[in-house]
């Protein structure tokens, strides 16, 4: 029922207002005394060398893609699991094929070492 989502919207508003109110109220109370050294990025007490926004390891990107793939896979499993009693054997075989196909990829990336953080 649509209307049962209204409380979630209300909750959202309340949850957003918490940090906003906190930050606004804090502004009246907290000191404000910035100077150059204080505003420097932290690097263990020495001046930072170079910029932080370098390019980082490609592994993070592989992990993210794999995550999206498996996330989509889980999404397919959600309705399947809910409906499982109705689908019975047919559903089981169906999902078996689905997962086996993905297993091929999983074993491939495992063997290729993409899951290894070298």
């Amino acid at each position: 029922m649509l209307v049962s989502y209204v409380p979630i919207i209300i909750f959202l508003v309340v949850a957003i207002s918490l940090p906003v109110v906190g930050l606004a109220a804090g502004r009246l109370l907290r000191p404000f005394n910035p100077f150059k050294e204080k505003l420097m990025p932290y690097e263990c007490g020495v001046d930072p060398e170079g910029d932080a926004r370098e390019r980082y390891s490609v592994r993070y990107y592989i992990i993210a893609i794999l995550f999206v793939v498996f996330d989509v896979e889980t999404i397919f499993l959600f309705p399947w699991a809910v409906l499982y009693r109705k689908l019975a054997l047919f559903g089981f075989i169906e999902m078996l094929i689905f997962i086996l196909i993905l297993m091929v990829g999983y074993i491939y990336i495992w063997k290729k070492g993409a899951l290894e953080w070298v």
Partner: protein
Amino acid sequence: MNILVNYVVIPLVKIVVIVAILSGGIAYLTLMERKVIARLQHRLGPMRVGWHGILQPIADGLKFIIKEDIIPIKADRFVFTIAPGISLVPAFIVFSVIPFGPPDSLWGTGGYVTDVNIALLFAVAVSSVGVLGVILGGWASNSKYPLLGALRSSAQMVSYEVAMGFGIIGVLLVANSLSLVEIVEKQRSMGVWFFFVQPIAFLIYYFCGMAETNRLPFDLPEAETELVGGFHTEYSGFRFSLFFIAEYANMITVSSLAVTLFFGGWLRPFSSVAALSFLDIIPPPLWFVIKVLIFLYIFIWVRGTLPRFRFDQLMRIGWKVFLPVAMANVMVTGAILLKFL
């Protein structure tokens, strides 16, 4: 008019109560953590503020508000400001679907803010948004340690989310519903908590939950002895406290979902055994809270005991142990269920 009362006024009251309890709970969870760990380590923990440090969380909260709020000069001010919010808000609104009591409790309004059709999916989806706050916070700081921490933690969080999702499927196969209220009702009608039906799914869920919330032994993103503070190194004052609150709220979420999915939610132990009906003296929401507290205690206990993993080991465990085990669990559960259909 009726709709306005049922879907706006009553939920609003509940939301205010829940937010109040949650905020207080998080504050006192920090005290509980310090006290329990102190016990484990033969210390006393906070003792100065109030009797046995009972007012410590309030002092901490005040301190967060009156601390100077520093935004590093090279930071992206806009993203830096909203990142903690992106972490915090999802952590809170998950509680709109978690049932604390049966549908007939609280004078018939139901022991939950709202009961939506896809509550479980909603909870999983919304908590997956929190990771964005971590990435953005680390990126916006424009500093090396936070950025490394942010990349680490987001990679960790998404990795464990996958295994966690598969763990939950195991429960769904038994429960056949995405509604958290129905999942608990199902545990009542079946007369058994799903933990006993799906123990492997539970273990996967709980361990992944520890990883999702960046707790030891998976606390690499914040590993203070390696990355100083991880993604929130540059944060101070109130903004830092928002990340902090989000982490503790997530701990409570993980525990609450664990209780709901595997330990019968608001049900008393052995709810089908009439001989134990004297246990009904404790009202259902209280049972829920007690169970959640037990899980929170385990979180703290583990923190006091174990060292932490290294990042590559952590990823290996997530992808090469939890994920295949969870997948196997789904298929084995499916196969076994075929017998009962």
